[in-house]
């Protein structure tokens, strides 16, 4: 009845064609793959002297969870956070903890406000981004004396980039359910 690969809306809009079907790998794996790619951002050849870039992996996680609820399981923060910890420069375990807590928090928000618009989602994301960046700085193992000066721009940039990330995820979501050739 509620087949995750064929939501009723999609069936009505995009009728299936002969020899074209959704790929289970693409449909299930796209959220995970894109979030992991976001976690790989430190490998980009950008070495800023100040941490200003938004935490891309976390933004994508929030985006997938808020834009397309029901795709990521509640425990997704553990494996994805573990992957993020390998590259982020934070002490190991910080993303496992914070990403799990963030997913639980989103779940609670969803239970409280089942019907939300984009602005509600943005509000929830902004609150979680602020908490996440501050908590990351606290858990980073470095001195905290100059953190307030550094974190402001990063928090602002991350909150402002959430709408772009949400749009990106809408695009990925269309790619996720693209119909591809079944035989040959």
């Amino acid at each position, binding site marked *: 009845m509620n087949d995750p690969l064929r939501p009723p809306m999609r069936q009505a809009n995009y009728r299936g064609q002969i020899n074209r079907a959704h790929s289970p790998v693409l449909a299930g794996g796209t959220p995970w793959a894109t979030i992991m790619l976001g976690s790989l951002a430190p490998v980009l050849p950008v070495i800023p002297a100040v941490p200003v870039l938004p935490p891309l992996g976390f933004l994508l996680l929030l985006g997938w969870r808020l834009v397309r609820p029901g795709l990521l399981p509640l425990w997704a923060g553990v494996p994805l956070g573990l992957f993020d910890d390998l590259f982020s420069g934070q002490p190991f375990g910080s993303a496992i*903890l914070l990403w799990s807590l963030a997913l639980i928090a989103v779940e609670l928000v969803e239970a409280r406000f089942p019907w939300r618009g984009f602005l509600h989602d943005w509000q929830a994301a902004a609150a979680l981004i602020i908490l996440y960046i501050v908590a990351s700085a606290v858990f980073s193992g470095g001195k905290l004396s100059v953190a307030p000066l550094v974190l402001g721009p990063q928090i602002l940039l991350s909150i402002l980039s959430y709408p772009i990330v949400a749009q990106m995820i809408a695009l990925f979501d269309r790619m996720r359910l693209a119909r591809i050739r079944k035989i040959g």
Partner: protein
Amino acid sequence: MAPPNAKRSGFSRRAQYSIFTGYVLAGIGALIGGVLLIVSLRDPHFFSGPRMDAMDAVAPVGKAGAVVRTESKGLLGTVQGYLSAGSRNARLREEVELARIRLAEADAVRNENQRLKALLKLTEEEIKPVAMARLIGGTSSSTRRFAFLSAGKKDGVAPGMPVRSARGLVGRVLEVGDSSARVLLLTDSESMVPVRRARDNVIAFAEGRADGSLRLRLVNLGINPIRAGDIFVTSGAGGLYRPGIAVAMATRLNKDGAIARLLSDPAATDFVVVDAIWKSVAVKAVTAPPGTPLP
């Protein structure tokens, strides 16, 4: 967007249990994360093995990215050169800037030579770099400042080795994988480098501030002798960095020293040189437990 129907458990026992299990799993995951976090805060190198393996795996991609960064910069320069003399102007300006740093370093070396010759007849051996490598990336969103280096154990890189560019000191190697290494940048808040003023012997510690600048703390407190524009070089104390590598330029004075600007911004460096630890005996002596005989 409203949650899909499967998320509303209603009276279905099965749905209720599956939601409950999800919460339990996520809670356990958060707990595990908390425990791992405490372990790695106590001992930052505990998980360096898996971390460096993962870095080794993605290092080739990063290296390709670094090459593209360097070459695209070169291409842009060429185009600009045809359009206007701006790029040449920029290059000359950079050369002058480098020359100024070199001059300050030369000052420091001359000063030191005088001092050493006055003290004893010390012959200085030639310093050969351990490896030449690219900085392939850096932690761009964490408050800790690390960079990743495209050379590792295979190239002879070991933890503690200083990393420098043509402009000056960049940081030191923290963890080593087979073909990549993690570098603690000077601006990290855990980084501390003993420095002295290039033209005389005002000694200080350069401490990272995580916002791209360094804080110079004078060792001898009293009247602050630093002036804005003073260039600081490594003093060689501690044995990790050889003396005379340019580190920072003082920009703003404060009570016990100054705030200084980093001379070799990691964002602007392509190739870096990994040096051997300057006086490994001294470093060993500091890290060895008390009572052990020195080599």
